C-alpha cells in the first residue's frame, strides 16, 4: 500500500539528493564539453593526438563505475567524493564528446579551411570564428544526448558515498523499510528532469540539425 504521508515526509531529503544529482551532472557536463573540445583539437596534432586517442580509448572501454571507485580509492582523502564524482564523470564523458566534436570538425568543408588560409587568417580565428561555430552547431543535438546519458549515470556516485538522489533514497528506504516507495520516487524524480531535458534537446535538434 502506497504511503502518501511518508512520501511527503521524505520528499525534502529526496529533493536535496536530486539537487546534488543535478549539480554533479551540470558540473561534470561542463568539464566534458570543455575537455572534449580540447581533446578533439589536440587529436589533430601529430603524435600528441595519437597518445590522447589511446587514453580516450582506454577510458571508453572501461566501466565508469570502476573508474569512479578506483579514483576514489587512490585520491587523497581530503578530496571530497563529490569532487571526484564530478571530475571522473566529466573526464569519462569527454572521451565521448571528443568524438562528437571530431565528427563535427571533420564535417566542416575543406573549402572553409582553404578560404581561411587564402585570407591569411591566424589559426585562432580560423578555429574560433569559422571552424568551431560551424562544427559545434552541427553536433549540438549529439552533445545534448550525452547530457541526458550523464544525468542517468550520476546514481553511480552512490558507490563513492556522494549524497545524491539514489544515496538518499537508499538511506531513507532502509531506515523506514519502504524500499519500493523510495525507488519508485527516485525513478519518478529522474523522469521529471529527464523528460523536459529530452524535449528541449529535441527542439535544439530541430533548430540546428537541419542547417
Amino acid at each position, binding site marked *: 500500500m502506497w504511503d502518501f504521508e511518508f512520501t511527503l515526509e521524505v520528499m525534502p531529503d529526496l529533493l536535496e539528493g536530486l539537487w546534488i544529482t543535478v549539480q554533479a551532472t551540470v558540473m561534470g557536463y561542463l568539464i566534458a564539453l570543455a575537455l572534449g573540445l580540447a581533446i578533439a583539437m589536440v587529436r589533430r596534432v601529430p603524435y600528441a593526438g595519437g597518445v590522447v586517442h589511446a587514453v580516450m580509448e582506454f577510458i571508453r572501454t572501461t566501466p565508469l563505475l570502476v573508474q569512479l571507485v578506483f579514483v576514489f580509492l587512490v585520491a587523497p582523502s581530503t578530496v571530497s567524493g563529490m569532487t571526484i564524482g564530478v571530475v571522473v564523470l566529466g573526464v569519462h564523458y569527454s572521451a565521448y564528446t571528443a568524438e562528437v566534436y571530431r565528427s563535427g570538425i571533420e564535417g566542416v*568543408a575543406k*573549402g*572553409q579551411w*582553404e*578560404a581561411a*588560409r*587564402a*585570407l*591569411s*587568417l*591566424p589559426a585562432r*580565428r580560423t578555429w574560433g*570564428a*569559422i571552424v568551431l*561555430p*560551424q562544427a559545434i*552547431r552541427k553536433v549540438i543535438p549529439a552533445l545534448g544526448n550525452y547530457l541526458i546519458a550523464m544525468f542517468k549515470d550520476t546514481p553511480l556516485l552512490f558507490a563513492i558515498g556522494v549524497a545524491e538522489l539514489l544515496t538518499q533514497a537508499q538511506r531513507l528506504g532502509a531506515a523506514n523499510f519502504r524500499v519500493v516507495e523510495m525507488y519508485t520516487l527516485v525513478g519518478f524524480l529522474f523522469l521529471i528532469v529527464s523528460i523536459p531535458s529530452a524535449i528541449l534537446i529535441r527542439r535544439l535538434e530541430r533548430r540546428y540539425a537541419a542547417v
Partner: protein
Amino acid sequence: MPPSETPLHEGPQGVEGQPLIVFDQVVKRFGDLTVLDHLDFQVDPGERVTLIGPSGSGKTTILRLLMTLEKVTEGHIWVDGEPFSHMPRGSGLAPASESYLRAKRRRVGMVFQQFNLFPNMTVRQNITEAPIHVLGTPKDEANQRASDLLDLVGLGEKIDAHPTQLSGGQQQRVAIARALAMQPEILLLDEVTSALDPELVAGVLDVLREIAETTDITMLCVTHEMGFARDVSHRVLMFDQGQIAEEGHPDQIFGDPREERTKSFLRSVLDNGD
C-alpha cells in the same frame, strides 16, 4: 631578397620592368601523378593571364601553389624577386615555414569555384573578417570598405544577409569582394563561374571585367569562359599535361592557334557550348 646573400639562387628582382611572378622549373606531384612538369613561366605586374587547357592539365594547381594551399615538389616560385615557395636560409633556400608563408600569402587573394563563403557569418562579416583580424583595419573603416566593395559588385543591399540567402552568382560576387578587401596585388580566379547556373555567369564576369578595367591588379584566371578570357586577358597560356603547350595574345590563341592540342581543346570547349 638581397642578391649578395644568395648568389647561388639569385631570383628575379622586384623592380620596375621585372616580372612579378616567376615559376622556375616547378614540379608538382601527387603521389605518382605529375601535375606540373618542370614548368617555367613569368607574369608581369598588372598583367592579366588566363590559363586554359583540359582538366587535369595543372591549371588549378598553379593557382593553389600561389595561394600556398599546395607546396612545390621541386623547383621554386618567386614573387616580386623574393622566394615564395622557399625561404632564404644561409646562402641557399629551404622549404618555406608556415610563418614565412603566412607573411607571403597576404599579397595574394583567391576566388574559388565553390565560393567558400563562411556560412556562419553575414556578408559584411565575411568581407571584414580578414581586414580586421589580419591587417588590423579599424572596424569602422573595414565596414566602410565592405560596403564600397559590395556596391562595386552590385550587392550593396545584401550587406546584412547570410550567404545561404544569396544565389550562387551573388555568393561569388561577395567572394570577389572578400578577396579584394585584403587589397591583394595578385588575384587568383579558379573557375569562378563553373559552379554557377548559366544565367548567373554574366553578372559575375561583368564584375570581373570592371575590376580588370579599373584596377592594375595582377590576375591569374583559370576559366572555360573563352569570351571573357579574350576580353580581359593580356596573355593566354594553353596547358597540357603539366606544361605550357602554347602561349600568346588572346586574339592569336583563339583566332589562329598554332598547336594541334590548342585547336582540339578549343574545338571541344566550343562544342560544349561554353
